């Protein structure tokens, strides 16, 4: 309908550019809608952060923050997420500039691998915490801790599944226009989770090191 003006459209996130025709035109409302979803999700996270902040004292004599933070593991997790984000970025750049579907899938899987590293480390940390008796049933503080960190972990897990799904779609349909916009949105989601993680290590983990 509006192909004549499609080169003027632009949305946040990596713009495909007019060369991508329909996919670029479709992206505008779809990506805007996805941004709204992300912002709404951000408010949900904010609520978990707020409850965490109000529960700091509510340890009920159980383990507190300082008892469960393993700073090396957190640093590794942060690194894994950042590398994963970078690799996803490379995948979207490859898609935008006409690389083969194979290449795009390669970078996506690489990104997924680091995402899974993150999840693995996080699960290990959770198991360690549980071994120390820091289970969420122990206190209000631990409930808030597990729920906040766990909610982020759940988002990463969902994102990982979605990476597999879009890879399958690329394999099935090639880089069709709807698949392209889906990769773009997944990229926004993946980068967005980094931002939440910045909040988590700055609010939850690093203050725990205070002596």
């Amino acid at each position, binding site marked *: 309908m509006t192909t004549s003006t499609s080169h003027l459209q632009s949305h946040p996130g990596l713009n495909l550019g007019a060369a991508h025709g329909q996919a670029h035109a479709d992206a505008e409302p779809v990506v*805007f809608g996805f941004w709204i979803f992300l912002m709404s999700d951000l408010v*949900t996270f904010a609520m978990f952060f707020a409850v965490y902040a109000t529960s700091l004292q509510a340890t009920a004599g159980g383990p507190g923050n300082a008892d469960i933070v393993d700073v090396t593991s957190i640093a590794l997790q942060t690194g894994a997420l950042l590398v994963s984000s970078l690799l996803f970025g490379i995948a979207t750049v490859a898609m935008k500039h006409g690389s083969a579907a194979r290449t795009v899938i390669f970078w996506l899987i690489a990104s997924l691998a680091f995402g899974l590293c993150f999840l693995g480390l996080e699960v290990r940390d959770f198991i360690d915490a549980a071994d120390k008796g820091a289970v969420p049933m122990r206190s209000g503080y631990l409930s808030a801790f597990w729920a906040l960190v766990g909610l982020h972990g759940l988002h990463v897990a969902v994102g990982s599944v979605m990476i597999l799904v879009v890879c399958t*779609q690329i394999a099935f349909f090639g880089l069709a226009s709807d698949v392209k916009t889906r990769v773009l949105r997944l990229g926004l989601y993946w980068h967005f989770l980094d931002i939440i993680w910045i909040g988590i290590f700055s609010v939850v983990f690093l203050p725990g090191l205070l002596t």
Partner: protein
Amino acid sequence: MEHFIFGRLGWDDIAIFDVFRDPTVSNIVGSSAGWLAVIGGVVVAALLLIKGWWRPLLFEWLNTTDHKKIGIMYIVVGLVMFARGVAEGVVMRTQYVTAFEGGYLTADHFSELFSTHGTIMIFFALMPFLIGFMNLLVPLMIGARDVAFPRLNQISLGFTIVGAMLLMVSLVIGKFATGGWTGYPPYTGVAFQPGTGPDYWIWSLGLSGIGSLLTGLNFAVTIYKMRCPGMTYLRMPIFVWTALCTSILLIFALPPLTAVVIMQALDRYLDFHFFTNDLGGNMMNFANLFWMFGHPEVYILILPAFGLYSEFTAIFAGKRIYGYTSLVIATMAIAVLSFTVWLHHFFTMGQSPTINVAFGIATMLIAIPTGVKVYVWIATLWGGRIRMRTPIIYLAGFILFFAVGGYTGILLANPTINFTVHNSQFVVAHFHNVLLPGTLFAVLASIYVWFPKFFGFRLDERWSATTAWLFIIGFTFAFMPLYMVGLMGLPRRSPAFDDPSYIPYMIVTMGGALCVFAALCTLIGTFVVSAKRREELAVPGGDPWDGRTLEWATPSPVPEWNFAFLPEVKCQDAFAVEKAQGSAYKIEREDFEDIELAPKSWIGLTIIVFGTLLGFAMVFWIWWLAVLSALALLAHAIGLGFVRDEGEIIPADVVERTERDWIAAARQGQGTDRTDEVSARNRGFSARITEA
């Protein structure tokens, strides 16, 4: 084994058999309601099968992505749930008449009634009504073919229906919560209510919340990105503005509800300690989070209603809305301010007076933009050629009552006064006083106004007007006395009282409640009578009230594709201006094109079926069913990405024929001069076209 298959569901949970186990009055009332639901369901199913209606239901309605049909389904769901809510209200009011002797219902049953009544009216009657109208009107008003994401729209409807279904199921199997619609822990925690009630609450609110959030997202994108050429922000009809603000509220206010429902579920299912009494739980977090959602929710319920009032006031006053810009600014101001006042719902929680005062002042500030709106409607009526149709009856009732509701709101915003009257019937009177005239009257009036647009015939004027009067009178008698008994000290939610001086008031309110029930009956009667006389009441021209905005510039019922060409507007109230200039009803272009409609989809039905099963299974701890339903939903969601349906193509010649037939009829159609618009002469063609 049995425990594995049925979870904690046992024979004792089948509430409709309670009456045979223990035939007390309370059980008879409870079980009758259950049986009514079951029989109603069976009758509907039988009708569907015998009359063959299941086929159109399945293939024209449940799989449609057409915003108009989805809107109608929302309103139908709302009406069904509204009927139940009114019935519960009447039962509660009769309880109060006998409450001096202890009442005829048990305290538990009474608590369940006010909990379901509140939950239903807010989430499954008023919200579906308003979201239904947003669906019906927004795309037409901004000159679009559909919403931005038609399939997502169906998904939203699906989740809303899931919540409503769970509430209906709770009538038959198990019990609903007894903790009120706000469900405050620790009373709703496992320690005090180990049963199914709060779990029903969690899943019906949680799942329908997803639907509402997606609706907000969908309409925000629709209004931002899908406006027709020339439809600048300041040319949008007021209803679209209010729909936009409501969408923004939905997007940002639902997350606290999601969060609080997740936390409450974790508390109840996995023994977390967010809101429990022991081990560091803090129920104040619940109140705080809940009302961060709850207060904007109030404006989700009222803003679109304000929009509807603005639209039809202009129509029936026969002039442009007065003070358009101030109305827009007031709407935006209310939307933003609504996020800053949540604490006034718990002034008595124990925080310092400074905090109470800050939130009290913020609350009073909202009265300013709201007051602006009331003046705008009055000023619109002022000097207009008002036609006293049913909507204006509702409007008159609304302006009068809403002023009272607003004043009592300002009283409640004052923390010191709030301390004395909070948790009394005064509060009950206040919020019914705002929500009934504010939202319900707007919805009922709008059903009258826009019914002909989507069904092709008007509603019977006499029946509609009777309904309006019954609602207004019933409302007056049902709720005004509650201010008095509230000030006299009767607490809300109390199943009994020990002061005989309340009794006369309670008899009056029961009379009012019965009158509202009669209004509900005449409302149904209106539909039946009008459907029978639909030939006589037909308005194929599509503009029975001399409308002003784009939705009236289409035939009735509106074709699936809405507009043959996307309109181009040059001013506010574009259709009214075109009619005045004599340029309406013209075919200016010849290049009719094929129109592709959004593909049909079954995702909505999948969500209804598996979402309800999921909720039910989680309530009764039937884990295998919960896992299977969740997997089914997930598989369908992922599968959607692999299915590539082509939408239905409407051929150019069909579009052209429809458009030409309609315009030809309009150009020779007999107009009315608006004084006899309720007579059979009104065929939905504007008067001015025959003059031109």
